[in-house]
């Protein structure tokens, strides 16, 4: 809402010392945030002064134009000894003796237009006589501005002040509950209340009783309880808009168009009551306010032919619809440049219904916005009367004796609160008497009943309904800055939950292992999943679709973190960042079947069944952890060559995550999209009972996937169900006794078939070695002709230790032989000599 200071201060009388900035601060403190203070004169750098035309000579030019060579008296700015300045002017709408606005040489006008003395049409033009558009106050370039001569302005004085350009205009963010502040009247009332000034409402005229004395009106909808119609005859269609009115309308952000239009807008801006004006001669019979019927159409005054919804509220006459109530009038009954007979409509419409209609037809306007926020039901009559008076005073119209008031003002709902409630909730010491004083100043009718207050809000305060609404009103008027902050003492908490702590541990460990976390947008295209090479029946195809996606190209929620990570890789490589180890942790979404419809009554707690349904009615949203590596894991350095990122680094992410939680992972070969079928590990947890939980996969991506996704060749990736990993983490741990006896180490090389997984050999060694085995590390993998085809040699370092005694070599050898025997039995291993 734009509010000019001069307009506010004609409506409210503010105390000494409350200037433009002080009021801005007071407004913001009271919840009317002043976002900007604008001053039109700030766009002009240098003097624009009042000049008086001394004489002029008209000089026809070769180009067909007739210019005027003028002398203009600019008082103290005249050249020494001269009566005025010589100025060339192309406009003809002025006479000798007229007062004009002169931009002196050296002044810069809006748009960076610098005025300088320059030779033109055979004369040196020393300054410029300004038109409205040149000063940035309007679009009129038909002629220059002629200033009012009564009273005569001082020649040479500032011309921007009489033009209203020394104005300060507040741009105020009016919250949805403060509809009454979408008017100068409402803002002036607040200004007076919060600064200690005074305010007398110029619209304080009660709505008369229901009367059909004027133009016939019938109300057929509860959503229009009140409709005032007032006629004005014989308005001069050519009557000019008075300058002060045009200035104010423009300063408030609307265009100045014609007297009838400006009057309607002016009264709306001042009172908050949107008005509609009809050309009375175009109306056919009784006006009826009713809901639209199926199939009805209306051509609105923007010349759009609109199909109407039964939810639209209409103004109709015998000819059918003539307006979308509160939103836009019809073309056929619109005022024209020759209209002399005017019917003014001032009505009250249900906020939600107007909101639906203007959104349905995409017709937001100053009027519909006000109706949606809730207009003062007490003001329609006064607003219509004020508009009629302005048309009478400035357009020569005659106001109908009879006015139609259809319907009546609905009573406002009362509420009872404890007088100490505002103080208790605000945390302020506010005596009951102060509460009463503040609420009365806000227009609330207050009856004090013992320690309770019976409150009835004024018609313009539709936001005051619940007890806490009054608490807020008191708080706003007192100012929140008086609240003394205190930190409440919460009961002893238990910190993060085990799962929350586990996730933090995992993320920290993965970052410490060399991966950088990214967060990507969770919207994917169907094509993204095709590019991953997922089978049609892959569970990751159980997609959750958005009804109104941001982009039709990406209508789904991610079922996997990989598409987002691949996008991040592409963005990085396009920025010459080729060596990447990225990870993301976030929710993925999986459709879990046909949802129900559940919208419990909000006035009570939902039943346990309703709560269960609310929670169950959502897609599955497990939290995943995924990573992608490409380029070089380690760059080449002076100590050694580069280490290219490969499948092992994808596995490392999984191991870093698991070991941080004390979980041991098992891996086995898998062939799953989007991975390379020979370089993909399924990552599992196998519990002590042998029950497997699959967490996901890690490995090198399939070459066709890297090609389809534009990824560097041999990019590797991992994706895990982090919730499942955390759920499998041991709750606690046992620290085993530490043996102080020395260990005995033995190496063993085993030849096995090339396709035997190292993990199987390791498992066999552990199983066979018995309790003395402390650790087993694979330190070499060898394949060569001397082994024979289809064989490989795995070299292990075994360490043995006893908790009770110092082992001998013989002890160790016995255990080693048992281990090797088990490896031979399970895996066909043969010890190399």
């Amino acid at each position, binding site marked *: 809402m734009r509010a000019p200071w001069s307009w506010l201060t004609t409506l409210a009388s503010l105390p000494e010392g409350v200037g433009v900035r002080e009021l801005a601060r007071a407004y913001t*403190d*009271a*919840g009317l945030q002043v976002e*900007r203070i604008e001053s039109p004169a700030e766009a002009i750098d240098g003097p624009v002064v009042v000049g008086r035309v001394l004489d002029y000579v008209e000089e026809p030019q070769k180009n067909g134009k007739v210019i005027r060579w003028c002398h203009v008296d600019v008082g103290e700015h005249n050249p020494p000894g001269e009566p005025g300045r010589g100025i060339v002017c192309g406009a003809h709408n002025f006479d000798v003796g007229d007062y004009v606005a002169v931009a002196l040489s050296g002044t810069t006008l809006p748009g960076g237009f610098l005025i300088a003395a320059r030779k033109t049409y055979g004369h040196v033009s020393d300054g410029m006589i300004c038109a409205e558009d040149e000063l940035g106050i309007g679009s009129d370039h038909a002629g220059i501005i002629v200033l009012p001569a009564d009273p005569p302005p001082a020649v040479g004085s500032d011309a921007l002040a009489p033009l209203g350009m020394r104005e300060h205009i507040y741009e105020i963010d009016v919250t949805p509950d403060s509809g009454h502040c979408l008017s100068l009247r409402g803002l002036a009332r607040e200004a007076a209340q919060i600064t200690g000034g005074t305010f007398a409402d110029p619209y304080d005229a009660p709505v008369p009783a229901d009367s059909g004395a004027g133009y016939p009106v019938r109300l057929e909808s509860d959503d229009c309880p009140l409709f005032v119609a007032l006629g004005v005859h014989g308005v001069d269609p050519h009557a000019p808009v008075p300058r002060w009115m045009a200035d104010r309308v423009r300063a408030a952000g609307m265009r100045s168009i014609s007297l009838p239009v400006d009057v309607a807008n002016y009264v709306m801006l001042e009172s908050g009551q949107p008005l509609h004006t009809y050309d009375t001669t175009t109306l056919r019979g009784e006006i009826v306010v009713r809901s639209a019927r199926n199939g009805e159409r209306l051509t609105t005054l923007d010349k759009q032919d609109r199909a109407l919804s039964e939810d639209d509220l209409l103004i109709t006459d015998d000819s059918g619809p003539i307006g979308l109530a509160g939103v836009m009038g019809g073309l056929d009954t619109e005022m024209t440049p020759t209209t002399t007979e005017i019917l003014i409509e001032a009505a009250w419409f249900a906020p*939600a219904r107007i909101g639906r209609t203007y959104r349905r037809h995409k017709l937001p306007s100053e009027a519909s916005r006000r109706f949606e926020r809730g207009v003062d039901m007490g003001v329609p009559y006064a607003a219509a009367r004020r508009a009629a008076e302005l048309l009478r005073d400035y357009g020569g119209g005659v106001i109908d004796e009879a006015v139609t008031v259809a319907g009546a003002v609905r009573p406002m709902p009362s509420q009872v609160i404890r007088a100490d409630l505002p103080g208790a*909730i*605000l*945390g302020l010491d506010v005596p009951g008497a102060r509460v009463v004083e503040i609420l009365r100043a806000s227009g609330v009718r207050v009856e004090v009943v013992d320690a309770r207050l019976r409150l009835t809000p004024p018609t313009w305060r539709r936001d005051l309904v*619940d007890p*806490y609404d009054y*608490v*807020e009103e008191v708080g706003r008027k007192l100012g*929140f*800055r008086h*609240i003394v*902050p*205190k*930190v*409440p*003492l*919460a*009961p002893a*908490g*238990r*910190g*993060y*939950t085990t799962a*929350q702590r586990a996730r933090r541990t995992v993320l*920290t460990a*993965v*970052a410490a*292992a*060399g991966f*950088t*976390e*990214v*967060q*990507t*947008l969770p919207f994917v295209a169907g094509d993204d999943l095709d590019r991953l090479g997922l089978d049609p029946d892959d569970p990751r195809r159980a997609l*959750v679709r*958005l*009804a109104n996606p*941001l982009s039709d190209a990406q209508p789904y929620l991610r079922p996997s973190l990989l598409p*987002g990570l691949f996008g*991040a*890789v592409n963005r990085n490589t396009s920025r010459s960042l080729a060596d990447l180890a990225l990870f993301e942790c976030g*929710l993925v*979404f999986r459709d879990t079947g046909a949802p129900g419809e*559940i*919208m419990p009554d*909000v006035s*009570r*707690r*939902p039943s346990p069944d309703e*709560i269960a349904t*609310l929670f169950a009615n*959502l897609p599955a949203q497990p939290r995943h952890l995924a990573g992608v590596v490409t380029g070089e*894991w*380690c760059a080449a350095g002076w100590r*050694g060559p580069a280490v290219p990122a490969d499948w092992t680094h994808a596995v490392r992410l999984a191991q870093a995550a698991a070991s941080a939680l004390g979980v041991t992972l098992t891996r086995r070969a898998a062939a799953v999209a989007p991975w390379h079928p020979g370089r993909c590990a399924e990552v599992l947890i196998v519990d002590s009972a042998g029950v497997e939980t699959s967490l996901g996969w890690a490995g090198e991506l399939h070459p066709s996937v890297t090609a389809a996704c534009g990824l560097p060749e041999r990019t590797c990736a991992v994706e895990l169900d982090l919730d499942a990993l955390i759920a499998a983490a041991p709750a606690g741990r046992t620290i085993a006794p530490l043996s102080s006896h020395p260990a005995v180490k033995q190496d063993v090389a085993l030849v096995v078939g090339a396709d035997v997984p190292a993990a199987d050999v390791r498992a066999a060694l552990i199983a066979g070695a018995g309790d003395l085995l402390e650790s087993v590390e694979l330190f070499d993998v060898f394949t060569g002709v001397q082994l024979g085809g289809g064989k490989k040699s795995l070299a292990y370092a075994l360490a043995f230790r006893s908790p009770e005694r110092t082992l001998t070599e013989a002890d160790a050898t016995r255990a080693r032989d048992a281990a090797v025997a088990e490896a031979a039995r399970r895996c066909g291993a043969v010890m190399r000599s």
Partner: protein
Amino acid sequence: MSDHNDLVARTLSGETSSERVEGRLDEGRVAQWVAQAREAIAAAATSEQWRAAKAAHTGEGSPLAQANRTIGELAAAQRKAAGQLIGAARAQVNDLLAKRRELIEAAELTHRLAAEAVDVTLPVGGDPVGALHPITDMIYRMCDVFTAMGWEVVETPEAEAEWLNFDALNFTPDHPARFMTDTLFLDPPGAHRLLRTHTSPGQMRTLLTRDLPVYVVVPGRTYRADEFDATHLPVFNQLEGLAVDVGLGLADLAGTLDHLAKAMFGADVATRLRPHYFPFTEPSAEVDVRCFVCHGASVDDPERPCRTCRSEGWIEWGGCGVVNPRVLASAGIDTDVYSGFAFGMGIDRTVMFADNAADLRDFVEGDVRFARGGVR
């Protein structure tokens, strides 16, 4: 062996044993041996030369060792004096050796250390350096402040029931926030499921599942049908707070948020509550923090406008208020006994303030440099 030959030669020269011993134990000769030893030890410049000098002057065949062995051959009356003479001489030589050894070792160590010098400014290599995303880090920083006060952390779904996101929070059925221009709904729309537009559904989930009193924060991702540019994202992060207890009000809210601000931005940061409107709080406010750039100075100094706060002196941080009793009623809570406060802070905004991140797009575009503070 040479010592042995020497002894044999002298024996063959015809000296009697007694004469020989007496002659060898002459004080002058002993002093001479010591002088020879001193000269040889002083000449030793390396450990090797030192070991050679030691062998020559204290070894088996050294004159002092040989003389020592002959003491037993002396007459009993002479033995004591001879023993003392030889013992003192040997002690003197050993002492010289020890001192020389210290010098040589010190010199050799100095030399070795000089020779082993490396260029310590060389890059040391190693595994790549990772980092947490600034949002993740900020969530933990903010939650840490609350867990330290005894609050608990609750996480709730991103795909949420419309009832929990809007209805239960006192949004009217026609509230503009519910329009498809503002909110992303899941298909089919009739199932009333959406991507949560704020973390506030965590309030109702908490009230429906926990016993009172509650003091919880709910961090996480939120979604709106918004533009994607430097100052708007369709996906952003909030930290919701909810406290419901006996006797809570706006003063408790102000104190809690002021504490959070000081923990996040420093002890000298001021906050203010500015009245505002939200359906689920009443009274409602926005919480502002003192401008980090001008500290409020630009308000009264038109010559030095501040772009960060637009010369308002304050920067908007989040929304908050006293929980609307209608919300508590939807959870079946007795509003005559309990009251509470709630807030929703922008985590992305907090990162922007705390870490000077300038462009919101960087938060979700995945550039690896972002989490590392902008460096490669």
